[in-house]
């Protein structure tokens, strides 16, 4: 034999149980409470905007992609510059005449740059 209620008694107990549970778990009924809760959520959301972790993931992803592209571009430029420098060093060793021409061209360009700078400074 079991102590558990049966039939109508079970229904009565379940109804009573549900009624009591509803009373225990009743949400706040004041409309002002809900307005305040909404405001608090929105304030926390606004105040969190400056934090890195609060940036929407879409923006974070776009930022990371842009940073990645920038690193690739910078890397390829650096590589290109290094390749050019190596090639010029090789040319200098292999062909001293070409090296002289390069030195003259470099000096001329420097002079043009110095001239532009002088003009800009009004001297």
């Amino acid at each position, binding site marked *: 034999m079991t*102590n*558990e*209620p049966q039939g109508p008694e*079970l229904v009565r*107990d*379940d109804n*009573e*149980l*549900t009624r*009591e*549970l*509803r*009373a*225990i*778990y*009743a*949400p*706040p*009924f004041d409309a002002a409470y*809900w307005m305040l*809760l*909404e405001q*608090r*959520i*929105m304030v*926390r*959301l*606004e105040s*969190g905007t400056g934090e890195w*972790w*609060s940036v*929407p*993931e*879409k923006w974070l992803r776009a930022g990371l992609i842009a940073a990645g592209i920038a690193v690739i571009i910078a890397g390829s430029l650096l590589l290109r510059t290094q390749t050019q420098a190596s090639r010029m060093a090789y040319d200098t060793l292999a062909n001293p005449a070409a090296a002289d021409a390069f030195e003259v061209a470099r000096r001329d360009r420097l002079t043009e740059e110095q001239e532009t700078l002088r003009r800009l400074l009004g001297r």
Partner: protein
Amino acid sequence: MTTDERALVLAAQRGEREAFSMLVRTHERRAYAVARAIVVNHEDAEDAVQEAFLHAYRALDRFLPDQAFGAWLHRIVANAALDITRRRKVREADELPESVASPFRDPAEGSELRQRLRDALATLPTRQRSVIVLHDVEGFKHAEIGEMLGIPEGTARSDLHYARSHLRGVLGKIRSEL
């Protein structure tokens, strides 16, 4: 999801705060009910709701507008509430036993039956307590509860059965003593 809500979700995904505020307004009561079913008191439920909405805002771009926003949000709320419950258990391991006290606005706080029922609820495992409240008080279906709590539907059914059976026994005992 209604057309209006879909429009609100899309606007919120574009970063319109007012649209998100409207979504909060529409869903905060139900979100609170879900959280309250899982945590032990009003304050924790409130914290869970706030955490959940902040998390939902940050994860909005992962939400597909064809989904039901409410169901998606409820899973987030349930996770936030379960997280708070776990943290509380760790914190209070050596302190007072868990209680389902809800100090604010209970008109029948003094009722002995209700108080003893509260105590009985406190002795139920978190999951069983959550299931019975989500089902009997909030009217969620077993499948919805299973999805929210990350358990199979069958487990939600058996949890409900055990929780009801336990509380019925307590009710019978109280009645015989009063």
